[in-house]
Every structure is written in structure tokens, then in C-alpha cells.
């Protein structure tokens, strides 16, 4: 426990000094706020684009607040995940490659607390960034578009957060397995993408897949908000996060310990 605190403090300090605590939340905030603002001013933007034929009128049905939030989540599915993967991909592999982990593991440290600190700091970064971004999106939606149903919004946000946790945990696991950073990014992004696409193509087989979490959170935001398999998917996702953690601990142990 003592060592976990030490490792965790070090991870937090590192994220602070490398400005991850600045730019990741900022990017998430920007992504979140952009959607309601763009939606609100879309008619004006189109008008000022200038190359419309004279006399043409465009009527855009004003979307509901929930729809705008669902679109925001769509933004996170692409750019959000990319930022997330890029910001945590070298957390384990970087220390292994530079060789600093040799000095750390020659000390009487526990491999589990080492990995747990990586997981905990990744989860805090993701949670804080997403909370900030999604909160910002919610605020601007209420200000510019119209009221939203708070319960559904919170639920959707929580399920989406789970999906981001899953992507982060997956990236850390790959980081404990592979060395080259581009390889880690490619594998983690590819796997996350495949999972979420698979739940679009084969909904029957992927009811409880973590990849269907983005869809589930979008469904919570629909008028007749009821999502199928939400609890199952959430539980399976949490189980996956834990399994990834255990696998990474085992992997780190295998590399360094005398077994």
C-alpha cells in the first residue's frame, strides 16, 4: 500500500511535469464544447459560407439537447480515444525501454503496486478529462439548445466513461507487451475500433461486449431511453479491465522476477 502511494505520486508528478494534466483535459473540454456551439450557430455558419444561390433558404430542425450530447459522445469515440491512447501508450513500455525500470525492480518493490499505480493514474486522468469535457458539453447544451433530462445524461456519461476506461486499460496492457510506441498505438486503437464496429455489424453476438458501450450510452439519450444489455456490458467491461490489469502484472513479473 505504501509502495502503491509512492508509485502513484510519481505517476501523477510525471503527468503533471509532462503537461498531460493540462493538454488532455483541454482537448476533451474543447471536443465537448464544440458540438453544442457548432449546432447552435450552424445556420449562421452556413449563411456566411457565401456560395449559396440567392433566395435559397435552409431550415434545420433544431435538435434536442439529448441529441446534441449523443453527437458529442460520437466525437469522443474518434478523436477522444485517439488522444487517450496517445497519452498513456508509453507509460509502461517507455520505462522498460529506457532501462529505468531495471533500477526500480532491483529494489524490493511489488509488481502489483507498480502496475496498480499505472492503472490508477490512467483512470484518474481519463475520468477527470471526460468529466470536464462532458460537463462542459452539458452546460453549453443547456445554455444554447435547451433543457436535458439530467438522469439520462448522467447515465449515458457513466457508461461512456466505462468505455474510455476499457480503452485505457487495453492500451496499458499492450504497453506491457510491446516495445515500439507506434505498434502499441496501432494495436490498441485497432482493437478498440474493431470492438465498437463489431457491435454495429453483429449486434446479436455482441450484446454484452464492451464495444457496445458507446451505443448503449447513445441509447440512454434517446427519447424512449432504454438500453439492452447495459448491466451485462458494464460488468463484462469491468471484468475485462481487471483481467487486463492482472495480465499486465503477470507480464511485468515474468520479465523481471526470478519467478
Amino acid at each position, binding site marked *: 500500500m505504501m*509502495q502503491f502511494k*509512492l508509485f502513484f505520486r510519481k505517476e501523477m508528478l510525471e503527468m503533471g511535469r509532462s503537461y498531460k494534466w493540462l493538454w488532455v483535459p483541454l482537448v476533451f473540454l474543447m471536443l465537448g464544447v464544440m458540438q453544442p456551439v457548432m449546432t447552435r450557430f450552424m445556420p449562421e455558419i452556413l449563411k456566411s459560407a457565401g456560395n449559396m444561390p440567392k433566395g435559397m433558404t435552409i431550415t434545420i430542425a433544431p435538435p434536442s439537447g439529448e441529441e446534441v450530447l449523443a453527437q458529442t459522445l460520437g466525437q469522443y469515440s474518434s478523436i477522444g480515444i485517439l488522444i487517450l491512447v496517445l497519452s498513456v501508450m508509453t507509460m509502461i513500455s517507455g520505462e522498460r525501454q529506457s532501462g529505468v525500470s531495471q*533500477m*526500480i525492480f*532491483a*529494489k*524490493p518493490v511489488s509488481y502489483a503496486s507498480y502496475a496498480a499505480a499505472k492503472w490508477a493514474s490512467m483512470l484518474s486522468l481519463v475520468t477527470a478529462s471526460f468529466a470536464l469535457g462532458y460537463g462542459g458539453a452539458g452546460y453549453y447544451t443547456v445554455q444554447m439548445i435547451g433543457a436535458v433530462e439530467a438522469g439520462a445524461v448522467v447515465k449515458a456519461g457513466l457508461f461512456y466513461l466505462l468505455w474510455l476506461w476499457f480503452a485505457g486499460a487495453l492500451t496499458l496492457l499492450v504497453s506491457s507487451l510491446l516495445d515500439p510506441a507506434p505498434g502499441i498505438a496501432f494495436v490498441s486503437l485497432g482493437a478498440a475500433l474493431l470492438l465498437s464496429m463489431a457491435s454495429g455489424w453483429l449486434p446479436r453476438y455482441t450484446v454484452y461486449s464492451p464495444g457496445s458501450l458507446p451505443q448503449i450510452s447513445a441509447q440512454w439519450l434517446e427519447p424512449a431511453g432504454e438500453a439492452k444489455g447495459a448491466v451485462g456490458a458494464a460488468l463484462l467491461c469491468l471484468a475485462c479491465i481487471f483481467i487486463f490489469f492482472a495480465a499486465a502484472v503477470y507480464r511485468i513479473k515474468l520479465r*523481471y522476477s526470478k519467478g
Partner: protein
Amino acid sequence: MTRELLQVKGLSKRFKDREVVKGISFSIAEGSCAALIGPNGAGKTTTIRMLAGLLQPSGGSVVLLAEGRPVADPRPYIGYLPQMPVFYPWMTGAEFLLYSGELAGLTRREATRETGKWLDAVGLRDAGKRRIGGYSGGMKQRLGLAQALIHRPRLLILDEPVSALDPAGRKDVLTLLQRIRLETTVLFSTHVLHDAEEICDEILMMREGEIVLQGSLDHLRRTYSEPVIRLEVGGDEVSRAWLAAAGGKDFVVQSEISGGRAKLRVADVERAALELMADAVSRRVTIRTLEAGQSTLEDLFLKAVRS
């Protein structure tokens, strides 16, 4: 009576089909300083990494004894400095020492005290406040020594601690080691024999994954040193010809002659020296130097490595 601190039996390591360390056995006594010497690629680093617990041996055992009893996890008793120590460039030297002290099990207060002490000891008092990213190689090596020693280990294991340093940095580290070895048992690897002679009393010589020679420095010197005469003559033709012929005299066991210099292994140094000088005078050969002495460890090392 010295107690054993580390016992290594039949230690081997195989990478795929290549056996890098071939079942070596040795022990290190408490309070001694042992040097693991060998040419590059002899398996020194692999051995060291297995001793430090960073690499799983393919066979054999490494046992560390504390108070005469074997310990299950040797890591609290070992301080380890890798060949090229790498740190977090974004940390300051003091922060890293504090961090490694606490990781090794010191309380925050102890770690703070030891950090200050060791920063002084390795001469990084002022640099300790700066980020490690701006340190020189010598400073990193000294910081590495400090982090290996901060928890007062019983055994300090160093992998090539001075090989990558310039003469000044090397002198600094060797001086530090000389002080440290009074308090701690030290094992370090090197391919520079001179460094080993300077601070060590035990020698382990490795070649191609095997220990070819081991023992105390004095013992090796006594057992293996041979009488040798080193000769240097003037550049004229008479002298050169005489030197070339000198290798063929009956008291010369083996000779190495190149240009105006010769190294002659002889049976009896005094007789050989007298005969050579008398001979040289009678033929009007100009002798620049004549040194009658013993073969050095360097010669022994080369012999062991080449044989």
C-alpha cells in the same frame, strides 16, 4: 574468520540455443571486494543481472546469506547499478534519491536524511536541485551509486561502473568506491584490469561464460606471476640485431619482440639480467631500459583470455 555473503552454484543462462553463462560457481565473503573481469561478451552483464534478480537463471542457484542464513528475497540486501543508469529526466537528483530510498523501504524521514547525506557524499549537493535531464555521464553514474546505496545494502553490485566515463569521472567514481568498500561488500564487473587492481582483493576472471581463474589478488600474483625482463634498445642496426638474437638465448623461456622492445620470460631473472648486460656491453649495444621484474596481472589476464 570471514563469513560468506553470496553463494553461487552452477549458475547458467541460455538464450535460445546460445549458452551465455555455463554453470559458474563462486562465493563472495562478507566485507570483500570482488571484481568480475573478462573481455566484452564474456557473460559478465548476464551474470550480474542474474545476481541482482533481474534475470531468471536457466539453472543453478544464487543464495544470499544474511547473518549466516539464506534469505528468500535478496532484493532488500542488494544495491544495484546497471551499466548505463537511466533515470527519469523530469525528476531532480534529490527527488530521485528520495523516491528510491522510499521504494527500498525507508520511511519518508529516513529517506530525506539519507538523500541529503548521499548527495553530499557523491558531490551532487548543488546539482541535486536540478533536473536529471541535464546531468553529465559522470554525474549520472554518481547519482546511480547513491541510489544503489541509500538503503544500506549488504552487497553492492555494479555493472561496468567506470567504463563509460572520462578520466576525471572515472577517478571520482573509483575514489568513491574505495570509501564505500570499507563499509559494504562490493562486486563489480569491468574489462579494465587496472580498475580491479586498484580497489579489489578478489578476482573472478570470465571467458566465454566460464570462470577461468579465481582467487585473491595476492594469491594470483604469487601463483601466476613469472619472472620477466623488459628490454628497450637504441634504434641502430647493431642493437636491433642483438635484440632479435637475444630471444634465442638458453635462459629465455618465451619472448615477445617488436621493434626496439622485447619482453622475455626467463627462468632466473638475476642471472639473465647479468648475462644480457655483459653481452650488450661487449657488443657495444645501447640499452635504453632494462627492467627485471614480474609479469603483471595484465599479462595473466591476456593469457587467460587467449588460452
